[in-house]
């Protein structure tokens, strides 16, 4: 019974943290879907959004704003920052690089990563800034079934909730709004979309903005978890296997990938780790991704690659 | 034009069927190519001509049916096996290696003839160098043959379409194939380029005795070049015979008229 309880605890913890990875992975998927850009800067964008938010909050609270007003204004400020960033990226990087191959675009986003990291820290400072938007303590459920109960972190639950809302929101955005539909058209075929009068530059700005807002959401959760600080950028690396497993173009895939990675790596770490030295979760997710790719080269939910002569 | 040496069958396609996700591209097609002939495959758009070539050189694996090449029967093969067996191929939309020069593209066609492995190539000395020079010499003959001396070191991406087609033919010739599949070798060419290309095709057939199967839209060219013509329509072979026979076939006329209207 203890063993089962522990397993459930690990499994639930894993699934939950997987959802948190998905929050970051979603931003990747948005951009890749619409512009074919593999955006390495997503982690840096989370940092930027988090820093903008937390610094604005601190300033507003220090100046006597009530907390709710500070939160609303802070989020508005951070959103504005992300919009500016999206515009700058579209205008100065992705726009001029249109029609380049994927690798070049990918490398350019690494360049963007450097710029965002440097600028964010220069403007907002490089300390650790605590952010407390969500509770971080834990519930212990089913204490009567399992001794000590099963630990469920409240923050994780919040994260899962938010991810759910986000996915639903994105689904509505893509299915129901004009911009969303245009976005899907662009994703299918740039040239064709262009020829029917969809302004590519605008669409890409919207996409990067959406990714920026997703980054902001991720930053609220991750910032609460870790404190807003430079290390948040490393989330990008944690999100990559999630993406690969889910498929680069699938929003549900990002969630599913997150769940698989989260559960897989936690279980591996807890049950396999001790026997082979521990710390395996970093590579485990990637090896899992590799294994998935060998079976389905386009990821679990990715669109099938068809070759023609 | 040279008549086939013999009636020996080089390639026999037997009851091949192929479908893509429910769409049937080829329906029980059978035909053969005799050694040394120039064989044309014609048909309206979407008739399954390119699919046929793709089956022959192993890029598509037929749902059923067999291919007999040089006496060996099989139901599918890998593209490089087909290449090794002596089947070379050009593409409807030029499929050159864009980042390489015309010379390197044709040199790449020699891959199957390369005997020395990695370690020798690293050293590029002795036998490896000698071999490389031999291949270069052979490739230069092809360049001379196709009259593309002036562009041998130009990256193929910069060449006009007609020359790209010629380089692609060169790459196929470099393989010294027994069977050469040409997918619309003259598509998008002007009159003069077409004439050149026709001349090259005939010369290849003449000089090297290469068997040639070609897909072509320009009927005049087909009638001039080929000794026998197979006609496909909607994945079915509707006629097969000499150009004259085919030209007068009722089924063919209907198929083409049907498309024209």
């Amino acid at each position: 019974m203890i063993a089962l309880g522990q397993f459930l605890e690990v499994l639930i913890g894993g699934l939950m943290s997987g959802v948190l990875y998905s929050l970051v992975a979603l931003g990747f998927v948005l951009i890749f879907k619409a512009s074919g850009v593999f955006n390495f800067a997503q982690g840096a964008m989370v940092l930027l959004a988090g820093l903008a938010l937390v610094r604005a909050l601190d300033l507003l609270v220090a100046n006597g704003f009530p907390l709710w007003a500070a939160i609303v204004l802070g989020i508005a400020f951070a959103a504005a920052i992300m919009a500016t960033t999206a515009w700058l990226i579209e205008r100065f990087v992705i726009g001029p690089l249109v029609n380049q191959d994927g690798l070049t675009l990918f490398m350019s986003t690494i360049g963007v990563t450097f710029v965002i990291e440097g600028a964010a820290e220069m403007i907002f400072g490089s300390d650790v800034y605590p952010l407390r938007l969500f509770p971080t303590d834990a519930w212990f459920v089913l204490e009567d079934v399992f001794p000590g109960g099963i630990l469920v972190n409240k923050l994780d639950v919040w994260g899962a909730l938010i991810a759910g809302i986000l996915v639903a929101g994105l689904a509505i955005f893509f299915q129901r709004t004009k911009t969303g539909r245009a976005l899907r058209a662009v994703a299918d075929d740039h040239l064709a979309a262009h020829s029917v009068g969809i302004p590519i530059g605008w669409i890409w700005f919207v996409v990067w903005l959406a990714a920026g807002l997703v980054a902001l959401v991720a930053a609220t959760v991750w910032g609460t978890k870790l404190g807003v600080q430079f290390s948040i950028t490393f989330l990008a690396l944690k999100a990559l296997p999630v993406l690969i497993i889910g498929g680069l173009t699938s929003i549900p895939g990002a969630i599913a990938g997150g769940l698989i990675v989260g559960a897989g790596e936690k279980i591996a770490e807890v049950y396999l780790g001790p026997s082979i030295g521990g710390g395996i979760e970093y590579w485990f997710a990637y090896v899992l991704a590799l294994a998935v790719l060998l079976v389905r080269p386009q990821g679990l939910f990715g669109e099938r690659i068809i070759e023609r002569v | 034009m040279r008549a086939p040496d013999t009636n020996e069958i080089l390639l026999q396609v037997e009851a091949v069927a192929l479908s893509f996700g429910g769409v049937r591209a080829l329906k029980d097609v059978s035909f053969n190519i005799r050694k040394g002939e120039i064989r044309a495959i014609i048909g309206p758009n979407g008739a399954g001509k390119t699919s046929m070539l793709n089956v022959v050189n192993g890029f598509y694996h037929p749902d059923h049916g067999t291919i007999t090449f040089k006496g060996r029967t099989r139901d599918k093969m890998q593209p490089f096996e087909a290449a090794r067996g002596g089947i070379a191929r050009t593409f409807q939309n030029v499929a050159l290696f864009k980042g390489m020069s015309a010379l390197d593209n044709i040199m790449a066609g020699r891959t199957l003839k390369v005997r020395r492995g990695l370690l020798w190539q690293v050293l590029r000395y002795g036998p490896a160098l000698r071999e490389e020079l031999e291949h270069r010499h052979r490739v230069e003959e092809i360049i001379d043959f196709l009259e593309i001396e002036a562009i041998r070191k130009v990256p193929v991406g910069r060449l006009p379409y007609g020359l790209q087609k010629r380089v692609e033919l060169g790459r196929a010739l470099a393989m010294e194939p027994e069977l050469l599949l040409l997918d619309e070798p003259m598509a998008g060419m002007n009159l003069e380029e077409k004439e050149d290309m026709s001349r090259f095709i005939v010369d290849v057939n003449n000089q090297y005795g290469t068997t040639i199967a070609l897909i072509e839209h320009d009927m005049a060219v087909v009638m001039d070049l080929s000794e026998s013509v197979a006609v496909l329509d909607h994945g079915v072979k509707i006629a097969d015979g000499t150009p004259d026979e085919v030209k007068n076939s009722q089924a063919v006329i209907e198929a083409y008229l049907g498309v024209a209207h």
Partner: protein
Amino acid sequence: MLYREAGQFKTTYVEDMAIFPIRQDRIALAVLLGIAFIGVPLLATFHIWPFGSDYLLWAILLPFLILALAAIGTNILVGYCGQISLGSGAFMAIGAYSAYKLVTGVHIPLAWLGCAISIPPLSVLASILLGGLIAAGVGILFGIPSLRIKGLYLAVATLAAQFFFDWAFLRIPWFTNYAPSGSVNAPELNFFGLIVQSPIERYLLCLLLVTLMALLAKNLVRGNLGRQWMAIRDMDIAAELIGIRPLYAKLTAFAVSSFIIGVAGALWAFVYLGSWEPLAFSIDRSLQLLFMVIIGGLGSIMGSFVGAAFILIVPIMLNLIPAELGVPLSTETIAHFEFIIFGSLICYLLIKEPHGFARLISIGKEKLRLWPFPY
């Protein structure tokens, strides 16, 4: 303008297919090699500017040479064969740790068999080369997925190698000969009795190896194998139809690339760092190498050198310039500026010339050859 080629004609294929068919290029190369092999050591020996201190030699030229070598390896895989890899750092690590194990002697007890595999300590050179070979072997293993996985998916998949080996060298004490800290020390660099110790000696050693391997790599990429790789890169389907086996082409690319990277890794560990931990070969190193080849030019051996120089030297210059100008900026601000400028430069370069410095150089060279004409 400097190219006066009239009258340079080739009477043999060997001349025509030379690496530098133009005499002026050969002269430039000879001058460069002369400076590298003779000029630099002489200047450094007599401490003549800019070799007043070891700084240039130790902190710039040495890492430049070694990383350029690693970049050549990366370029073979990424630039020539078109297989994007984010795991180059791992292969450097494999080279480094394998060489370390070999040079200290390998002992694998096989308890259940009651015997052990023992390899006596090997010489430094043999260890470095064998380290490269082991990296090549592992490279082949990790190249197998490339047969199914393509493009950016493959790039991410190669991260599996990166993170796995990061972990392995950190966690498996056998690799570090059970060093308590997990940090290992390079052995004495003994090459057939010649002890390589001083910066000049280290520099010459690396220069020699890098020059040699660059030459051999060039031999490969301009030979049939190189054409196979490029064919796979440019159009894999057509490549297959002319008889190129994707399996062979891709795996040889992985092997050769990993071998070169592995040797570079061993040099990085033995000659440059002297003492290292897996962090020296982290994902950052992989990205750095990828940057080098993209900025330098995919599919260009020379580009690898230029890219390495750029990626290595620009941050240092950005760091030095404000100090030299006496601009009163805090280290922190400079560091952040450095990030911003470096990132912007990379974006700018990619926009301006997505094919890297190699293309810029060849355009420049073409201009000089046609001077004063524009085309």
